[in-house]
């Protein structure tokens, strides 16, 4: 019974968290530019249904899209075009189950959760690429090609930082990593290089500057998402929100001990842990948003050469460093 409740509740929690993080990203981005930030803008049919608060503006944007016409280009491959966003949303929701939200989780204690979540995260980006290719527009083709090239360098770094933290904790399950951090120190202190690599990889996966290349709006309109509109675009945006919160939650779980500071014995400790989890998510998003605001976009070849010159060696070093730390901790 509790499992059934969790199956429904966790994606909703993840989505709401994604909405709040997206609001924070837009707010910090705007404030760093001397602007005010997102003001309330609601579709007429939504007024009165959900209350009106500026913090939920990204949610209103997604819901507004549900009322708009979904246009499918006549020359697009309809099956792949329609199914790619839906599959990527399903994968995003699946990945949400593997994160521990300050103690609440469904599958975080699965002994192989790292492996599962790695595959699922790759799959989400892959289906965005496929959706772009099926759109039959020169912009989407260029955008998908860029996304595929970017994935080549970013996924390797993401993997290496996830496995660095797994090596240190000697466990392939997110729950195991978190309990290791509860006993020992947070992994951000033990291996800060892995944390740095993870943050850069998150910038790449979520298309934030300087890796906004696949979605560069002055060159290729919207990249893979150019031809999407209406409900399909709402699907893509939702999967983006969920991915934001999943990746931020993953960072907090792997490097900041998931917000679990006090042992989860009493209900007050659990609430405290949850609040710490939320706080850490907001701080991580603050950093991401500021980097997004002060860096222009790389060119795709510059991004790849920068990644190969700096990011890959750093990732390799972080794995070696983790092995050394593991050895030291094992001996000590």
């Amino acid at each position, binding site marked *: 019974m509790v499992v059934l409740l969790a199956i429904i509740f966790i994606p909703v929690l993840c989505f709401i968290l994604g909405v709040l993080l997206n609001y924070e990203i837009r707010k910090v981005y705007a404030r760093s530019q001397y*602007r005010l930030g997102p003001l309330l803008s609601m579709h007429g049919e939504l007024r009165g249904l959900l209350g009106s608060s500026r913090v939920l503006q990204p949610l209103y944007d997604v819901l507004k899209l549900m009322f708009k016409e979904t246009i499918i280009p006549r020359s697009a491959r309809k099956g792949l075009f329609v199914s790619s966003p839906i599959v990527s949303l399903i994968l995003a929701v699946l990945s949400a189950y593997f994160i521990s939200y300050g103690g609440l989780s469904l599958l975080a204690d699965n002994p192989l959760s790292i492996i599962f979540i790695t595959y699922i995260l790759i799959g989400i980006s892959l289906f965005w690429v496929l959706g772009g290719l099926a759109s039959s527009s*020169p912009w989407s083709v260029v955008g998908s090609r860029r996304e595929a090239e970017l994935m080549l360098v970013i996924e390797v770094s993401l993997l290496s930082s996830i496995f660095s933290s797994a090596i240190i904790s000697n466990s392939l399950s997110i729950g195991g990593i978190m309990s290791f951090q509860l006993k020992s120190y947070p992994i951000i202190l033990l291996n800060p290089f892995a944390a740095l690599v993870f943050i850069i990889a998150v910038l790449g996966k979520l298309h934030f500057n300087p890796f906004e290349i696949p979605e560069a709006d002055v060159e290729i*309109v919207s990249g893979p998402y150019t031809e999407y509109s209406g409900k399909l675009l709402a699907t893509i945006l939702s999967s983006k929100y969920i991915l934001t919160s999943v990746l931020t939650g993953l960072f907090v779980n792997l490097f900041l001990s998931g917000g679990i500071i006090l042992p989860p014995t009493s209900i007050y400790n659990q609430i405290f842990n949850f609040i710490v989890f939320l706080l850490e998510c907001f701080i991580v998003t603050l950093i991401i948003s500021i980097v997004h*605001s002060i860096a*222009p*976009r*790389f060119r795709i070849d510059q991004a790849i050469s920068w990644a190969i010159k700096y990011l890959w060696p750093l990732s390799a070093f972080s794995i070696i460093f983790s092995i050394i730390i593991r050895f030291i901790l094992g001996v000590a």
Partner: protein
Amino acid sequence: MKSLNDVLNELGNILKPDFEITGYGCGGKHVRVKTSPNRLLDAAKYMLSIGSRIVHVTASDMGFDGIRLMHIYSLEHIDRHAHVILYAYGDGEQVKFPSVAQLTYQANWAERETMELLGVEFDGHPDPRHIFLPFEWPNPVESSSESKAGVKQVTLPIGPYHPAMLEGGFFKLFVDGEDVVDVDIKVGLNHRGIMKLAESRTFWRDLFLVGRICGICSVPHQLAFVNAVERILGVNVPERAEYIRVLMAELNRIHSHLLWLGVAGDLIGFKTLLMWAWKIREPIQDCIELLSGNRVHADSMSIGGVRFDVTKEQLSKVESKLLEVKRDFKKLAEDIASHSIVRRRTEGVGVMSLSDAREAGAVGPTARASGWKIDVRRDSPYSFYDEGHISWDVVVEEAGDVLSRVMVRVKETLVSIDICLQCVDRLKSVGGPVATSELKPFPEGEALSKVEAPRGELVYYIISNGMDIPHTVRIRTPSYRNIAALKFMLKGCRLADAPIIIGSVDPCFSCTDRVMIVDSKRGEKWTLSGDEFKNLAFKGWRG
């Protein structure tokens, strides 16, 4: 070093007996020379060989005399203000002239425009397609617009609707993967028939019309128009009015360069720079609004002076705002010039060498960034830009890439702020009227006037036949030349650099498209159909 008279004597020797000096303008420095159509090529060869550049090629229907084709050559490297306006009348109904575009690219677009405007034919033009009329208009010569550069390409259109461009222009890029192999430029999507409109309204109404050709460079258009009209009338502008004119022109330049800096930032993905640069620009807009009454269309010029006077309070407010902008902008410029990713995106990108710049006929900051030191305020000083009144420097960079163009504009902004502060200083002590009282009915005459707009050299040629309505108004904007020069910059660049290269010449499509067309009827087929697009897209990623 030759002088203007030597050049005219040699030209007379070459063109004997079809050589006749018919008039002078601007204190004897603008020389009007009449010749016959079949000698135009010889004259062009001689003028190009002594290093002059073609400012414009244009034509006007003079009624019984026929259609007059004018080549305007600049000899500013020999003597200040020196120009030779060589013209010839076509004969009868079939008007054919030899094309100068076969000698130099500078006349390419101008001759295509004249072909559409008046129906003249140019023998030997390398690319006689339409430039402003729609694609589907029957071409004078059926030539294919496909690139000859190879099979495996995708055609990627930037425009007519594109988020990179605020106005409509069509750049057809032939790309191979991420490399741009060739480019075909079409403008004319924003034209409003301004030159034709200007020929049917009185001079005063035209003044407000030309101020609305472009929102960003509204002041230089009015200034050039008013200079030309004052040259025809032969009136002198009072001293205080000239200082106010320089002040308005330089405020316009500062605001235009700051706007461009923001747009350039947006084009490389640095939206934050857009907001920062535009925030710094706000006090300048406040200054323009305080002095003239409107943030965008200053409407400050009047025939014979300016339309308003400035009080001491206004001057002190302007001065404090200018100092604030100078302080903030210096810091921002240092931050940006040392930003590693900005340098990576702009250094070595879109290079145009000095010889290419001369061949393409680039003007303004685009030319100065390639090392070519041309500036109308130095070569043909108007208002009070000469050394007797205001001291300033011409900014030149050597590398010719996007970073040089950014730095030229940044440094020019700082120079402009200094010029404005000098003007404000002088205006506190110089008194007198702000408009002349010697206006009289318009005589017959013609005049050429040039002004340095923020984007380059802006040329106006006005012919008056004694009525209160001008007979001919010909405008050649700097973006006309700079967008044509893009052809040299875009070949061989990468796709991701195309928007920033197009943006780095500061294209103002509103300025470029102001030619009259005869009819606005379109054919039924737009450029590529949906199937052709799809095939091209699939060809790109399958093949």
